[in-house]
């Protein structure tokens, strides 16, 4: 019914929480979806209902909608409001300043306001681990990396990944290409096609929907020649379902593994802390390997035991601080210099 209006939020005894997605929406198979999963879990665990006074989300259809959507949630009186994605940083900052009594959280970037909790991930650490996998498993010593847009965030993936490869297999080369967009599957496919043709056998993508093209190319090649060793490393979520294919009744999967980024965990944690009165306002919480915020996906069928063991060793080294994973190209160069 048309019950819209400001005062409908009514009596509030329960804790309510909501998020604003960026244009990807809650089923982008990426961080928006992951965040929503975390929020849903939080809702269920705390007996909340979807909607006003419980847990909810708003989807943005362009970047001009961020502030409007955040404000809508403020006006619906949610106790904690998440902005999902680095693009929303400015909007969260603005709205947080205007509503100093409200609590906000931002994912993937830092907003320096007392009522905002910033959640970032050490994607480089997770990428390092899948880099180790790739370095150990390549047959051709040629590995590919496909980035969406050339921005610092994606550079973290790239640098961590390359460092991981370098650490275990200094002879292997990593070919890096950027598609210039997160939504151009055709470009992703073309890049993958050219990479696989040049002898690359493993591609790690951090390219959103552009990555669909990478999977598509890998599966087509695999289907044509099931014996060929061809792999994709997924990103953000466990992308094993994307890699599945059947050839002559036999099931294959081109997804070697995925670098997962547990936005769900982070969202859940933050909501929980806020509910318990421990809202980390003004702080930046970095989710890395120790926090289980990033890591290698649970689907590991294609990875042999010994490789997994090596991965685990590196993981421990990183957690212990024995290895510092580079976050950008400059740091990578320094890191690479220490290997040889």
């Amino acid at each position, binding site marked *: *019914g*048309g*019950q*819209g*209006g*400001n005062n409908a939020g009514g009596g509030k005894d329960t804790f309510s929480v909501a998020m604003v997605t960026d244009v990807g929406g809650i089923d982008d198979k990426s961080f928006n979806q992951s965040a929503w999963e975390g929020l849903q879990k939080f809702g269920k665990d705390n007996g909340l209902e979807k909607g*006003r006074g419980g847990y*909810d989300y*708003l*989807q943005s*259809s*362009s*970047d*001009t*909608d961020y*502030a*409007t*959507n955040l*404000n*809508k949630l403020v*006006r*619906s009186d949610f106790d904690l409001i998440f902005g999902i994605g*680095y*693009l929303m*940083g*400015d909007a969260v900052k*603005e*709205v947080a300043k*205007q*509503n100093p009594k409200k609590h906000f959280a931002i994912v993937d*970037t830092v907003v320096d306001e007392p009522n905002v909790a910033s959640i970032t991930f050490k994607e480089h650490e997770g990428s390092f681990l899948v880099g180790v996998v790739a370095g150990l498993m390549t047959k051709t010593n040629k590995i590919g990396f496909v980035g*969406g*847009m*050339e*921005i*610092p*965030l994606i*550079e973290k993936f790239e640098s961590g990944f390359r460092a991981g490869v370098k650490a275990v297999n200094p002879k292997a080369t990593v070919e890096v290409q950027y598609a*210039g*967009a*997160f*939504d151009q599957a055709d470009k992703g496919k073309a890049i993958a096609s050219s990479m696989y043709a040049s002898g690359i056998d493993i591609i790690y993508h951090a390219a959103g929907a552009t990555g669909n093209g990478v999977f598509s190319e890998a599966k087509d090649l695999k289907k044509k020649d099931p014996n060929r060793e061809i792999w994709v490393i997924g990103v953000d979520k466990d992308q094993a379902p994307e890699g599945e294919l059947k050839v002559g009744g036999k099931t294959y999967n081109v997804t070697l593994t995925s670098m997962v980024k547990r936005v769900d965990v982070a969202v859940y944690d933050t909501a929980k802390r806020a509910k318990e009165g421990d809202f980390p306002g003004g702080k930046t919480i970095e989710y890395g390997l120790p926090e289980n915020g990033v890591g290698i996906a649970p689907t590991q069928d294609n990875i042999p035991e010994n490789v997994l063991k090596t991965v685990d060793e590196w993981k421990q080294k990183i957690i212990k601080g024995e290895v510092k994973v580079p976050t950008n190209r400059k740091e990578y160069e320094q890191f690479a210099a220490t290997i040889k």
Partner: protein
Amino acid sequence: MKSNRLQQFLIPLLAVLLGMIAGSIVMLASGYNPIAGFYALVYGAFGDTYYIGETIRQTTPYILTGLAVAFAFRTGLFNIGVEGQLIVGWLAAVWVGVSFDLPKIIHLPLALLAAALAGALWGLIPGVLKAYLKVHEVIITIMMNYIALHVTNAIIRSVLSDEGFKSKPVKESASLHSDFFDAITHHSTMHYGIFIAVAAAFVMWFLLERTTKGFELRAVGFNQHASQYAGMNVRANIILAMVISGAFAGVAGAMEGLGTFGNISTKAGFTGLGFDGIAVALIGGNNAFGILLSALLFGALKVGALEMPSSAGVPTELVDIIIALIIFFVASSYMIRWLLSRWQKGAE
């Protein structure tokens, strides 16, 4: 004559109405409550001062992109490149906005001028190619859109940014931000740009309808041959038309850069403002006053749509459907005219 005037207003109005009715049918057919849907839509656009502020903020760039498309149309050109011109205008405005320390009275106009010039430059290229080599402006402007997107991203990344993906905020002296609007609209992002947009509509009307140059531009737009016979410089006018159109688009970008966002971030894709501008211009009958109204309609639909999923459960895409239907009905004004004449005859 009089009935023509009346029809000019009546037809878009009826088209909007028919679009809404058709939208209701779609909602009914897919199991939504159209009354709730439209209530949410209207509430989300005008329900209180905050929403009104947001609607006006969204209307602002639509006015300018609509003017850009319309100006080109009126001078016989089809500018699909408004999107790209807007992006470079945005970039230029922000660039000036962050790089100088000047008194507001100089800084803000300078930033706006930079945006207009950047958009104009982006229009100049297809204009020159059309004028001298007769290359179709549609292809060139499509290509220029992509170039604008990638080049702007690269510049943001390498020149303008501190964080790699976005610029610093523009200086206060170049900002369109309005404390006054902020206060009366409960922190909406509405900014002073709306005055600039409305002024631009006036400028376009005045330029085309009242000035000597406008006479020339329109004449060349309608009939290049006759214009040439009458001693007009056809090439110069084609180029000028694209340049002015691009300048409007560039200023639209400044609205985003100096007003709504106050900075510029790398873009994963087009803003859509430029493409929507085509529809705004056409619904507005390519006329300055009509564009003010159609931009408001667009702004309201877009902002109001955000309320539909949460309070009526209707997907925002429904608004795209309604917009499309309205455009169809406006386009098919012959049908409406025919219906009107039928109806009038029946009444007689």
